[in-house]
């Protein structure tokens, strides 16, 4: 494990050297150590990885960024790298700077943060982990005779990062634990799969699964094997909490990333303080959410995390910003500047994005709808921040009538439509709430860990 805190003096010195040449200099050291255990019906493996560990040095002259990133992090190598970086730097300096990056930022000074966990995964003996996951594998294999193979994928990681610039010297350790159960079923010439996943900035306690969850996996596999395509049309729908989370993420998560405002790739810029959703909707992004999969203490630009209310009572209120776009647009820096790793650029990104729960029970939502489709097991989503088109794909849609499931199932099902139409159609919001782990790209790359969630919601959607 590379302890990024151990060479913060060096980082401070080198960031200072860069700042002396330009209007702004910073250093970010990221270290990740993960232990993964993978068990399927025939094989098991344990792997230890340190991918994604490295240092990135940043220079900025008010208009242009230059960065040098390396994973060769001995102190001598870092000094040599920065020397070489400075010798090739083409930035003209701070004269005529368009944007003052570091100005007016709250000076936090030196601070260290650590993830509180109930059961630190590193304290659990390896034998115990393997035994537990072997048992889970056996449970999965015995779910149904159509199950041909299964996989238990467990991962525990410790990510440390240290950020240094002229004002701040911050360090954080984030513990993240994740487990996925995947089952493959084959019958009548068709192969399907479904999964259960738990994950968050939490401890080993998340590795247990309830009998209800396992029963749901079994039911879903059977449903997938017999499912048909849905008749295209507009339906009342009730979305599961994870499907609700994807709607939040894709609609005014991506739609309000403010780096896109600068590029005029996001229509939301022109809809601030306007009604874009049902008055029932309160949508937030919160990197400080305890236990969230996308939780952190400060972002990759040294801004402390805090919740942002994106939509309040249906009104679009605030975007999610990285430092540069916040400065250039004259809006608050919300602490959403994130990188996939030291090897990639910072963009404005989401953390944990969700819709706030309200008062209705699931039964009440079904009663309000009368008939419709219950959408669950989301498999992906994508949004067009410029055109406000949205696509959410789920593995399963279950028909319900008069408040009861009819047994008819459809797969796969896609929600498509215009984002404000979808959000304005929300007529009921549940009183439950849960978050799920997810991975998010910018375009089709730059993958980062995020949390998505919310309650059940009742809306009207075009399905295909």
């Amino acid at each position, binding site marked *: 494990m*590379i302890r990024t805190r151990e060479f913060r003096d060096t980082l401070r010195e080198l960031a200072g050297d860069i700042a002396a040449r330009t209007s702004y200099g910073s250093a970010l050291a990221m270290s990740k150590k993960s232990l993964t255990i993978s068990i*399927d019906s025939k*094989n*098991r*493996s*344990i*792997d*230890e*990885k*340190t*991918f994604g*560990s*490295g240092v990135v040095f940043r220079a900025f002259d008010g208009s*242009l*960024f230059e*960065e*040098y*990133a*390396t*994973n*060769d*992090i001995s102190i001598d*190598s870092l000094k040599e790298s920065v020397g070489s970086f400075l010798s090739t730097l*083409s930035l003209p300096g701070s004269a005529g700077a368009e944007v003052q990056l570091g100005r007016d930022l709250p000076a936090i000074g030196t601070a260290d943060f650590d993830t509180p966990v109930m059961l630190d995964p590193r304290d659990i003996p*390896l034998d115990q982990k*393997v035994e537990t996951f072997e048992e889970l594998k056996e449970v999965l294999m015995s779910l149904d005779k159509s199950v*041909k*193979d299964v996989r238990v994928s467990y991962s525990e990681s410790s990510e440390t990062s240290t950020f240094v610039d002229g004002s701040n010297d911050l360090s954080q350790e984030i513990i993240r634990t994740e487990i996925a159960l995947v089952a*493959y079923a*084959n019958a009548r*010439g*068709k*192969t*399907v*799969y479904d999964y259960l996943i738990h994950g968050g900035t939490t401890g080993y306690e998340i590795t247990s699964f309830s009998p209800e969850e396992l029963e749901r996996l079994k039911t879903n596999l059977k449903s*997938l094997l017999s499912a048909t*395509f849905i008749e*295209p049309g507009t339906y009342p729908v009730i979305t599961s909490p994870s499907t609700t989370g994807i709607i939040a993420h894709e609609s005014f998560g991506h739609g309000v990333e403010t780096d896109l405002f600068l*590029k005029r*790739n996001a*229509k939301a810029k022109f809809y601030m303080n306007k009604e874009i959703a049902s008055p029932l909707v309160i949508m937030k992004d919160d990197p400080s959410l305890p236990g969230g999969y996308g939780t952190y203490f400060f972002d990759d630009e040294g801004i402390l995390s805090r919740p942002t209310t994106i939509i309040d009572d249906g009104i679009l209120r605030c975007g999610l910003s990285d430092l540069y776009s916040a400065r250039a647009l004259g809006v608050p820096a919300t602490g959403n500047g994130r990188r996939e790793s030291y*090897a990639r*650029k910072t963009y404005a990104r989401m953390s944990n994005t969700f819709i706030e729960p309200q008062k209705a029970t699931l039964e009440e939502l079904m009663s309000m709808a009368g008939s419709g489709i219950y959408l669950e097991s989301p498999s*992906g989503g*994508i949004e067009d921040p410029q*055109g406000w*088109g*949205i*696509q959410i*794909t789920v593995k399963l849609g279950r028909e319900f009538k008069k408040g009861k499931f009819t047994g008819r199932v459809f*797969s*796969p099902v*896609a929600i*498509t*439509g215009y984002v404000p139409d979808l959000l304005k159609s929300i007529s009921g919001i549940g009183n439950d709430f849960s978050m799920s782990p997810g991975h998010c790209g910018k*375009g*089709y*790359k730059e993958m980062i860990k995020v949390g998505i969630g919310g309650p059940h919601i009742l809306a009207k959607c*075009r399905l*295909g």
Partner: protein
Amino acid sequence: MWNHIDRIAKELESSSDISQWSITGTHNREDQFFSTGTRAEEFRTVDSRIITVEIFHINGRLQGISSFSLQPHQWAESRPHIERACEYVKKLHSNRLYILPSQQRYRKLSLCSAELKDNSRAVIDSLWSRASKASSKFRNGKLSTLELFTRYRERYFKNSRGCAGFYDEGLVFMDCVVTATSGAVETESHGEYSYRSPEQMKVEAYLERHLQQAKDKIHAALPPSGPCAVLIGRESVQALFEPFIYHSSAKAFDMGISVFKQGEQVCTGDRSGGTPLTIVSDPLLEKATQSFPFDKDGVSAKRATVIKNGVFSQMWATAEYADYLKIAPTGEFGNCVVDCGRHPIRNLARGPEKVLRIEEFSHFRPDPASGDFVDEIRLGYLINRGKIKPVKGGSISGNVFRFLGDARFSSEMYSSGKYMGPAAVLFPQITVSGA
């Protein structure tokens, strides 16, 4: 890097707990450039080196497997990592045994242009200059964002059975967003392109195409709902074949989930008028991005015809699954090469009646296991008796195993990244969910 790999190899050899091992070394150098409009926003240089070690502990007919990775500052002190991996493999000695590939000859492939290796920043400057120049001529539109990456990568491999190899490769990548404006309406078109060498990157043509697509979106409406002939083109075509590649793998057979049988048709639906499907894994194409002289296990690259004239021909198999199933390894799947058909695109687009030609999806990706797809249309054209109307929104749904047997492939070839095959595929009837 060889010095470090050889030294780690000696340490692995000296451990009585290790029965077999493999070491992979990778050195990546990337230059990255980002612009907002025609204003340069950021330059980045990334240098990373990593050595990954996989160790095996054989116990009779079973074995344990574990791996770890080392960054440069850890290379001189690999011993503690090896000892910890040895602890892990002893806990996991119930895996099926497979033997690593033995020494073999690797073909020489030219996978990197000299300019990417020696002066990648100049490549970026040149591509950026071309993009700026091309976009300066745009009317009613502009370049919104541009990202250009160049990568030079060295790969080293060695295992305990005498395999040893090295190759280097280059990659140039472009991500662009072009917007078009008409009054208060602004629309965008996004594209990503990866190639081995800079001369393959047709910057001007791609930007022009995305400008036109963005302009067409301004006037596009929802397509009508119902069954329709659908013509899928360019980047999306490749995704149609992914479920066939998935079910052709030795891994899918070993898991018991492949729906294919040797010598039988792979398409389950109507096959009356379709182009017979032939898919080849070809890792030896020098201009394609999924080419390699050897794969991650050290298996020498070779072509493999997995589906021939619609019939399942052979599995593609990594060393591990080939050993389990007692077949010859083909190595990892290389570039996807698909035989073209005999229909010019203009004939396919004419169709029997109206044809929906889809240029851009939100994210077209059929489920690899079931073959089902349901995807949003970002831009298409409804062609009806010579009249062409742009459409957007709504979705199409279907199943590639059921529908591809009756699909007609274009005679024109499209080549991009790791795909070489028909530029367009016509499905006689697909359900459209629209207005």
